[in-house]
């Protein structure tokens, strides 16, 4: 009895959360297209999210390419198919690994950052102060952050993918005597628009999800410092989950349109 009650309660909370998130998202779209545009704040957020994540994304991407190549080599060598390494690595990185892993890293960095920042602003009444001084805090804080995340994440993913391929090429060059030119040739022979375009479109949604969940959790933060921690923590969890859901849907859709 109590267990079923708990499950019902949890389901209810979950559904309420989903509903609130949807309202939050619809409010975002409504406010996104209404004046005034907080352009300077948008640029500042782009800078904070983009440039400040470059090192993280670069290192992650480099190691991703390096490790992925190193780990796949023995298996492919068993088949005598080392020459397929560049194609395999580039396709899997560009299509799936790069976007998902970099988005997850960014969910950890950006979502929690936004959640904590907005949460503490909510708790210390800074959001109220903003509203009282006549500035729409949703526009100033939420719209700019979600938009910045949506715009910046694809760029970060492209940046990360490129570095990952450099890492992979390095390993191939050191271990397999594949020149950088040959690697590059093979990569671009293997890649198609149907690899790069769905991945890029998908990464916009990833960015939107990261920004949306971070802002939602932070903006609706409960009072107290515990609330801030909770906001940033659950922002990461929800954002990561949402990323996989989006990825799942994206694969289905790109399957229909691009015949992978």
């Amino acid at each position, binding site marked *: 009895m109590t267990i079923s009650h708990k499950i019902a309660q949890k389901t209810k909370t979950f559904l309420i959360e989903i509903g609130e998130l949807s309202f939050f998202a619809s409010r975002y779209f409504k406010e996104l297209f209404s004046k005034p545009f907080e352009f*300077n704040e948008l*640029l*500042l957020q*782009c*800078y904070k999210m*983009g*440039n400040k994540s*470059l090192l993280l994304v670069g290192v992650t991407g480099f190691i991703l390419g390096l490790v992925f190549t190193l780990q796949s080599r023995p298996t492919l060598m068993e088949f005598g198919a080392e020459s397929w390494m560049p194609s395999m690595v580039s396709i899997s990185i560009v299509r799936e690994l790069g976007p998902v892993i970099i988005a997850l890293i960014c969910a950890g960095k950006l979502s929690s950052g936004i959640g904590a920042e907005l949460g503490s602003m909510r708790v210390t009444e800074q959001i109220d102060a903003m509203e009282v001084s006549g500035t729409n805090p949703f526009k100033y804080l939420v719209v700019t952050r979600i938009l910045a995340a949506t715009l910046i994440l*694809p*760029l*970060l993913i*492209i*940046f990360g*993918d*490129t570095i990952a391929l450099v890492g992979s090429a390095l390993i191939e060059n050191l271990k397999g005597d594949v020149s950088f030119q040959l690697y590059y040739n093979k990569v*671009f*022979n293997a*890649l*198609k*628009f149907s690899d*790069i375009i769905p991945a*890029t479109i998908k990464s916009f949604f990833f960015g939107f999800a990261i920004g949306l969940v971070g802002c939602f959790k932070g903006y609706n933060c409960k009072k107290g410092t515990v609330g801030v921690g909770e906001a940033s923590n659950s922002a990461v969890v929800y954002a990561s989950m949402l990323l996989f859901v989006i990825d799942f849907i994206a694969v289905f859709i790109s399957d229909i349109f691009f*015949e992978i």
Partner: protein
Amino acid sequence: MKKSNSHKIKLGLFIIISSLFLIIALYFIGNRQNLFSKNFKISAVFNNVNGLILGNNVRYSGINVGTVKNIHMINDTTICVDMHIDYKFLKHLKKNAVAGISSDGLVGSMVINIAPEKEFAPPLNPGDTIKSYSKISTNDMLETLNTTNDNISLLTSDLLKITTSIKTGDGTLSMLINDPEMATNLKTTVKNLKTASSSASNSLNEFNKIIKSINYNESMAAVLLSDSVTALQMKSIITNLDKSSTGMDASVSTINELLKSLKTSEGSLNYIIKDTLLVKNIDETVKNIKDGSLKLNENLEALKHNFLFRGYFKKIERQKAKEAKKE
């Protein structure tokens, strides 16, 4: 926010670099698909395109020259494939070029191969339709391969029968293969033959010398030769010798031939036929040679003991002794 000018520059730099990566990637991928280079359209009509899809490569003599842009059915058995070919290859493509669909490697995707013909033809114009040939698909190939496989299995089973019968049967060939005694006999025979022929050539040499010395050096011998009786005898001896040496020559060459054919014979049937002859021949030859060489030895011995030649032989011995002393 005045302090954010440097931020803006850095942000701009990041955005430009990342966008450049994307644009470069898109450009190169597009380039591979001939999206940006000037190109022209040609068509070919096939009965079966074997799973060709839009974007597959088009090759001319092995070079990627374009991509498949459109595939549409004209009627139930004809499919028209439009290809975009890079403009710079236009002057090399002739009107009589032939297009075929094949797969790129065993597991690769399909490609259109355009092959040039040897005869002269005017260059292709944009929009032309070129000839095509239906290359066998992997399926057809596998079917053919299946028939081939059946044939091979029949062949191998026959071969197996033959080889077992060779092994277990008691034909000459099996004797030759299985009997170790035969092999040793053959070896000794050949060895004997060698010795015999070398001794025969030695004797002939010596005989030549004798003849020479008879004619020019020894007056005694010359006188003797004028004696008709002795001369007649001598003649008969020499004719005999001659005969035996030619016989020997012939037999040696026959052996050689046989040995050669034994070595290089082709086909099992051929082998067997030749083989019986070989064995017989070898047997006879060996016998002949043995006889011949025995007779020759006898002849020589007789010569030595003949009083006419005794002096000559002694003289030779003396000369040999002198030379030994000198040295």
